[in-house]
């Protein structure tokens, strides 16, 4: 009996409810938002979704370890500008992509080292690096690099799968599939959850906590680099504001996807759905005849509802399940 009850409950996860909600929204749009399902609109949403999700997967890993990174927006802006600077030389995309990833890794590793070595809370440390990244930007360029060559905008303007699907979507798909498996089966991901749950006991269990966290930031940095290059190559001009506010969208996607900010829980699939919901909001309300200025408020409301519902579930869960393991074992 108990076993069966548990099984029915196992698929009624937060991700499941989220998927239902997403489906409802999509059906609602199908009925009420005329013209929403044109190929053009879908592809432009998917493009936005791609660069959001790629970075959100990285953010998800960081948050699982009970850390956070609020410097992502500034980091992405730095990588965008630096990529544009080398892109101006006419280098092709296969060079730009790894270059951006390496830059992302370097900057994000600085974050990771800063946090682990000084034991400063992640939010404070990354707040500091945000200021540094943002402070460096106006020094390096007077604000923007423009008139970039066709080799730079190749990804956005030319690279289309079957002439329709933007290549960024393919990149996102590959990364997502890898992430799904990696976070489910790899030993490394188990360490992340362990650290997020209880850093102290993780250390006692023989996990090198500092090293793992730095590596996590490095991996996330590589993903931020990919996002940066997609954002940067969207047009012929790269400014210092390319990544502004991105970190909030990422954190929101992760939280909406059911990852607890306390760390130790959360799945990639949740982030996949969460990011999609947030990316649909702005174009959707435009097609529904509401001013796009409402989009931030609506996104906020969705996150708030999700967090409140999540909090209730958490309370319920704790009441029902939290029986010390020893008691259960002794019972047997």
């Amino acid at each position, binding site marked *: 009996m108990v076993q069966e009850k548990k099984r029915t409950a196992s698929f009624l996860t937060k991700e499941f409810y989220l998927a239902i909600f997403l489906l409802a929204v999509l059906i609602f749009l199908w009925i009420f938002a005329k013209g929403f399902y044109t190929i*053009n609109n879908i592809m432009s949403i998917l493009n936005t979704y791609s660069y959001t999700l790629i970075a959100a997967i990285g953010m998800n890993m960081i948050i699982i370890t009970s850390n956070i990174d609020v410097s992502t927006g500034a980091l992405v802006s*730095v990588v965008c500008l630096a990529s544009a600077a080398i892109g101006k030389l006419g280098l092709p995309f296969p060079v730009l992509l790894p270059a951006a990833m390496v830059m992302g890794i370097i900057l994000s590793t600085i974050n990771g080292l800063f946090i682990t070595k*000084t034991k400063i809370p992640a939010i404070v440390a990354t707040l500091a*690096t945000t200021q540094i990244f943002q402070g460096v930007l106006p*020094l390096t360029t007077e604000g923007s690099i*423009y008139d970039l060559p066709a080799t730079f905008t190749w990804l956005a303007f030319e690279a289309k799968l079957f002439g329709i699907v933007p290549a960024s979507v393919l990149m996102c798909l590959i990364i997502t599939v890898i992430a799904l498996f990696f976070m489910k089966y790899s030993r490394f991901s188990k360490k992340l959850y362990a650290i997020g749950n209880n850093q102290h006991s993780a250390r006692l269990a023989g996990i090198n906590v500092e090293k793992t966290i730095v590596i996590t930031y490095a991996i996330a940095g590589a993903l931020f680099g990919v996002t940066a290059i997609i954002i940067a190559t969207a047009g012929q001009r790269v400014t210092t504001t390319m990544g502004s506010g991105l970190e909030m969208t990422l954190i929101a996607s992760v939280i909406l996807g059911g990852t607890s900010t306390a760390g130790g829980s959360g799945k990639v699939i949740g982030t996949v759905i969460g990011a999609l919901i947030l990316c649909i909001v702005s174009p959707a309300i435009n097609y529904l005849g509401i*001013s*796009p200025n409402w989009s931030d408020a609506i996104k906020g409301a969705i996150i708030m509802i999700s967090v409140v519902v999540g909090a209730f579930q958490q309370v319920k869960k704790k009441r029902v399940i939290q029986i010390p393991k020893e008691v259960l074992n002794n019972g047997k």
Partner: protein
Amino acid sequence: MKKKLLQKIIAAAMVCILMVAAVAGCSKTETTPQGEQGGKETTGGKSDGKLVIAMLPKFKGENYFDACKVGAQEAADELGITLLYDGPPQDQATNQKQVDILEGWIAQKVDAIIVSPNDPTAIAPTLKKAQEAGIKVITFDADAQKDARDLFVNQITADAAGKGLLEAAARELKAKGYGADKKANIALVSGSGTDANQTAWEAAIEKYLATDEYNFMVIKNRETDVYYPGTDETKVNAECATLISRMGPGEDQIQAAIGLSSMATPALGAQYQSASQKPDANAITLTGLATPNALKTYIKDEENPMNVGMLWNCMDLGYLAVQVAYQLKNGDITTESTSINAGRLGTKEIVDRECVLGDALIFDKTNVDNFNY
């Protein structure tokens, strides 16, 4: 105890590393030629007895204001004065940042301030404070509250700008078969919504849309067809992408998109370029305000429905602003003057404390290469 010390040392080392990284980053991305002249000018004081004129754009580092600065520098060299040029970084284009810079200049006791305010009313108290300190206050590009400045150097009247933008769109639309018997839906992509220019241009556009000449173009729904994406590049791009996907020949679609900011118009061109299924270029048109350099590729591309852009001569605007500031400080002109002899630009009229630069500059593929900004 020892451990704490170690932590401190590591922390200090981290800070050093970050600084080194920052410096390294500097040299790596130093590409725009403006960079070299940019930063250091603010240190030049009045030591050599030269007149000091300070110029504050809405934000630094965009080709529009870069071009203004080139013209301003030209005038400053001609007149033998010191020009200070500073502004908020683009991602912090707020009134507060501008006020911070102004406060610094007021303390330095510069002779005149030339400013393009992000918010016309919020900046007024600071500008008044500057005036009380004996500093001449000129606005350029965008006006502030009238009682907070001495003169306004206006690049173009709102009326002429609104008409110019509509004319550019109308010409293209008519060529594509729209007219009195076939109405066209238009959409506007504005800026932050508080900007004085864009508000005035929108009003002018509305006014002209009511006239017989332009009433075949309609803004169907102000809520959804006038965009205010702000100055965040990624958001501008995303909203322009949505707009492009709403374009097409149908009655419930949009036929013409007009960008009212120098960020929005290139974004429209870029998003059309990257659209998966491009709306029929024979049925739609894109146009708007931007520097020629920013639109060059799209205008020259035969398949892109962006064929014309509109602006004024930015270099002349910066030049005129410095001339006005200089002559006002020197007493060559007063706020009551009706004209100014502005160096290489010749005589310009001053009406109601506004000095207007001139007409709109409409560029297309035949002359887009003639401009270097």
